[in-house]
C-alpha cells in the first residue's frame, strides 16, 4: 500500500500566472490536493483564490503554469472538458430554475431521454438514487422555489455529482447558511469525501478550515504562501500567513470591554414603532417591528439573510417606503423625510452592498468620499474642488485608504479599501445614529479588525448603532443587545450576556420563537 503522500495528487497546479490588465491576480500560484481529502484554499479578498479555481475548472485560461488533474497535464482545457474529466464547480450563486423540480434541475443539460422525449420517471429514479448514495437528502419531486437556501445548495452539489464530478470546487459555500445548515453541510461534504470524492473549499472563515479540512493552502496577493496540514496549525498561524503579520483574533472571539451605556435611563437615539415594509415578493417583509437603540449602544440583528433585514434598513434609510409605522431619530419623526434630509437629521448609513448602494466605482476616491454629502461641498451649485480635495486627503490619511491617490477610481481598489471609503465617509459626517449593514462583508482580516474598532469607537462616542450582519460571530462580538430576525419579525431580543451561538441558532432557523419586543 502506498501512503497518501506518494499517490498521484488529485490536482496539482504549478506556477499559475494570470493577469487582468495591470492586475496580476495569480503569480506563480501552486496548489496540490490529495485524492479523497477536503482541502481549504484560504486568503484575503483579492488574494486570487477564485481566479485560481476558475482556471482549474476551465472557466478562465491561464497565462502561464501547468494544470495536472490525476497526473494528466490538462493545461488550457475548457469547462466542458473539465466537467467531462470530473472537475465540477459548485456555484456560490445558485443557478437553479425555481419553477422546476429538484430532479429536473439536477438533470438539466443531461436529461435522460427515451424515444426522443424527456424521461421524467428515469430522471426521478436517477436523482433519488444519487440522493441516497451521497446522503444529500432533498425530495426529488419538490419545486426548487419551495426549498430553503441550505436545500438549494444541496441541489447544486447534487447537480455537480450528477455530472460525474469526482473533484468538487466549492466557493464560500457557507456564506448564505444558518449555523445548523452549516453543520449539515459539513456532514454532507464528509460523506461525499468518504465516497471517494476530493473537495476544494474556498473560504476565509478560519473555524471552518480547522473544523473540516485535512490540508490548507494559503494565498496572498496571487501567490501561494503556505501549504500545511490542518492539524499542525492554528487559526492564528493561518491568519498570520494570510495577512503577512500577526493578527489579534481574540477581538473577533467576542472578548471586549462592556458598554458603558445605560440603556434604561437615556432617551433612544433611534426608535422604530410598528414598522411594516413591503418586500419585492412579500407584502410584509418587515412585519410589525418595534425597537429602540440608545445612544452608546449597538443593537445587533442576527439572522439568515432574506428575513427582512434588507427591507428594514432600507426603510429606515429612506430607500424603501414603509406601509405603516413610524421611524424616529431622537425625538424627530423622520418617517416621511427624503434620504438626504434623513442624513442631515443625523442618520448615517453603511449599505449592505457597497457596489450597488455605497460607491460609484467609476468615480474617484475623492468623489466617492463626498457621495451623499455633495450638497455640503458646493457653493451656488458649483462643487468646491478645494474642499473635496482637502476632505479626501484627510480621510485617506485617517482611514489608511490605499492606494493614496485620491484621483484613482474606487473600482481599482481592493474590497477592504473600498469599504474603508464607505466607512470613512459615513463616520466622518455628523450623525447620531448609524445603520451598519454587513460592514465587513468581502473585507480582509486586517480591515475587519479596523472596521470593528471604528464601530466601537463610534459606540463609545455615544452614537446609536443598528448592526445587521450575516456573520453571527460579528454580531456576538460587537452588539450590546442582539435581536434575531426571522420571517420579518424579531423572534427574540437578548442581551449580549444571555446570547451565544447555540442559543441563537434555533431562533435563526425559525425552529424557536418567542414574543419579542
Amino acid at each position: 500500500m502506498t501512503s497518501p503522500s506518494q499517490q498521484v495528487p488529485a490536482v496539482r497546479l504549478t506556477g499559475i500566472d494570470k493577469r487582468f490588465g495591470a492586475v496580476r491576480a495569480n503569480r506563480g500560484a501552486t496548489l496540490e490536493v490529495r485524492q479523497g481529502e477536503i482541502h481549504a484554499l484560504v486568503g484575503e479578498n483579492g488574494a486570487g483564490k477564485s481566479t485560481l479555481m476558475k482556471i482549474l475548472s476551465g472557466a478562465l485560461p491561464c497565462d502561464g503554469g501547468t494544470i495536472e488533474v490525476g497526473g494528466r497535464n490538462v493545461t488550457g482545457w475548457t469547462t466542458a472538458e473539465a466537467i467531462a474529466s470530473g472537475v465540477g464547480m459548485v456555484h456560490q450563486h445558485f443557478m437553479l430554475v425555481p419553477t422546476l423540480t429538484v430532479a429536473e434541475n439536477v438533470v438539466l443539460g443531461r436529461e435522460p431521454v427515451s424515444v426522443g422525449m424527456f424521461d421524467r420517471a428515469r430522471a426521478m429514479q436517477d436523482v433519488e438514487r444519487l440522493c441516497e448514495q451521497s446522503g444529500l437528502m432533498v425530495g426529488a419531486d419538490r419545486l426548487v422555489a419551495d426549498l430553503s437556501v441550505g436545500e438549494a445548495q444541496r441541489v447544486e452539489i447534487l447537480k455537480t455529482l450528477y455530472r460525474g464530478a469526482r473533484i468538487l470546487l466549492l466557493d464560500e459555500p457557507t456564506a448564505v447558511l444558518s449555523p445548523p445548515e452549516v453543520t449539515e453541510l459539513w456532514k454532507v461534504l464528509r460523506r461525499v469525501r468518504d465516497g471517494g470524492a476530493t473537495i476544494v473549499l474556498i473560504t476565509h472563515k478560519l473555524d471552518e478550515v480547522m473544523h473540516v479540512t485535512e490540508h490548507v493552502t494559503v494565498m496572498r496577493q496571487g501567490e501561494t504562501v503556505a501549504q500545511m496540514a490542518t492539524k499542525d496549525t492554528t487559526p492564528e498561524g493561518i491568519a498570520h500567513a494570510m495577512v503577512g503579520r500577526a493578527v489579534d483574533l481574540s477581538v473577533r472571539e467576542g472578548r471586549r470591554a462592556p458598554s458603558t451605556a445605560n440603556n434604561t435611563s437615556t432617551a433612544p437615539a433611534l426608535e422604530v414603532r410598528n414598522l411594516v415594509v413591503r418586500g419585492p415578493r412579500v407584502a410584509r417583509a418587515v412585519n410589525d417591528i418595534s425597537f429602540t437603540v440608545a445612544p452608546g449602544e449597538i443593537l445587533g440583528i442576527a439572522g439568515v439573510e432574506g428575513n427582512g433585514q434588507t427591507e428594514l434598513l432600507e426603510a429606515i434609510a429612506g430607500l424603501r417606503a414603509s406601509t405603516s409605522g413610524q421611524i424616529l431619530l431622537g425625538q424627530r419623526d423622520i418617517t416621511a423625510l427624503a434620504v438626504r434630509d434623513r442624513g442631515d437629521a443625523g442618520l448615517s448609513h453603511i449599505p449592505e452592498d457597497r457596489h450597488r448602494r455605497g460607491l460609484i466605482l467609476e468615480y474617484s476616491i475623492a468623489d466617492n468620499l463626498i457621495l451623499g454629502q455633495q450638497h455640503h461641498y458646493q457653493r451656488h451649485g458649483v462643487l468646491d474642488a478645494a474642499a473635496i480635495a482637502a476632505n479626501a486627503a484627510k480621510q485617506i490619511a485617517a482611514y489608511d485608504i490605499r492606494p493614496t491617490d485620491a484621483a484613482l477610481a474606487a473600482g481599482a481598489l481592493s474590497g477592504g479599501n473600498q469599504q474603508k471609503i464607505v466607512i470613512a465617509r459615513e463616520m466622518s459626517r455628523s450623525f447620531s445614529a448609524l445603520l451598519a449593514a454587513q460592514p465587513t462583508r468581502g473585507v480582509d482580516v486586517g480591515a475587519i479588525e479596523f472596521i470593528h474598532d471604528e464601530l466601537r469607537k463610534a459606540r463609545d462616542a455615544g452614537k446609536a448603532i443598528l448592526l445587521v450582519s450575516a456573520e453571527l460571530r460579528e454580531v456576538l462580538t460587537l452588539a450590546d443587545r442582539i435581536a434575531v430576525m426571522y420571517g420579518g419579525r424579531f423572534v427574540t431580543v437578548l442581551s449580549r450576556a444571555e446570547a451565544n451561538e447555540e442559543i441563537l441558532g434555533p431562533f435563526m432557523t425559525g425552529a424557536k420563537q418567542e414574543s419579542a419586543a
Partner: protein
Amino acid sequence: MNARFRTILEEGVLPPLVALAIAMVAGDLLILMYGQAPGAVWRMLLEGTWGNAYGFGQVLYKATTLTCTGLAVAVSLRAGLFSIGAEGQLAAGGFAAAVAGLAIPAGTPEFFAVPVCVLAACLAGGAVGAVPGVLRAKFGAHEVIVTIMLNFIVLALLNYIVSTKLHVPETLHTPELHAGFVSRLSGTFAVFHGSAANWTLVIVGAAAAALWWFLFRTRAGYELRAVGLQPDAAENAGVKVGAAWRNAMMLSGALAGLGGINFVLGYKGYYEDGFAGGAGFLGIAVALVGRNHPLGVILAALFFATLSQGGLAINAMVPKQLVEALQGIVIVAVATSVPEVRRIVRQAAGKMAGGRA
C-alpha cells in the same frame, strides 16, 4: 496620476482610434472593389473637405448641427438613458426658432432677436425631451421606445403645421424670418464664400464648453453622472433619480433643439420640412465615438461631417454611398468597444433575465 492618464488613454481615446483604423482598412477594400487606388480617393476626400475653404466651411456647418445632436445623446447616456429622440427635437428646435423669428417684428435688433430665437429653439427641444423623461421617471416607460415614437409624432405634427398653415405656396418651408439671423462666416472671411458655415458654431462651441463645466464641475452634473453610473448608489446618496432623469432628458432635448438654429437662423433664414435629414440619428454615433465627452463629441462631429462632405468630393471616383458604409463600420466598431454600450446591453440583458440589473 499616471494610472489615471493611462485609463483615459485606454478607455477613452483608444476605442475610437481603433474603430477609425478598422474603417480605413474596410474603406481601402471597398475602394479597391471599384477599381480605384485607395490613396488617390483618400487624398481627394481630404482635398475636398479640409483642403479648400469652401469644403472646410461645409464641414464646419455640418459639424455644428452634429455637435448639438451628439451632445444631446451624450447627456442622456451620461444619465444612463439612451435617447433616440434628437431627430425630432432638432426639428422642433428649428421650427420654434423660425416661429420666434416670424413673431418678432422686422427691424428688431439682432442682439435681442437672436437670443430670443435661440431660447425658443432650446425650450421647444427641451419640451419634447421632457416627455420621455417624465414618462420614464413616473411610469418607468422605456426611453428608447418613447423617443423613437415621439420622433414620428413630432415630425408628422411639424409637417402638418407647415404644410397647412405656414408654408410659402409651392414649397414646404415657412416664409423668411423677420429677424434673428446669424451671419455667415463668409461675411467676415471672404474665403468661405458660398459655404453655409455661420457663427452658430460659436454658440454651439460655447454650449459644449458649458456642458463640460456643468457635467464635471457642478453638483447637479456630479449627481447626473452618478445616476447614470449607479442609480442605486445615487439614490442612497440622496439624489432623486426620477427628477435627475427628467432633467437630463430635458437638457438633452434642449441641446438637440439648439442645433435647429444652424439651419434656420444661420443658413436658410426659414424652417423647411425635413431639414434635420438624419442629423439627429447620426448624433447617436457622434456621442458614441466622442465617448460622451463634450470635446470628444466636437471631434467626432468634425469626423462625421468630413465623411459626409467628403462623400460628395469623391463621387466622381466611387459612389458617395461608400462613406455611408464607412459610417456604419465606424459605428459598429465603436459600439462593440465602448464600455457604456456594453454596460447598457448588460443591464438590458439583466432586466430581461428578471435578475437584479
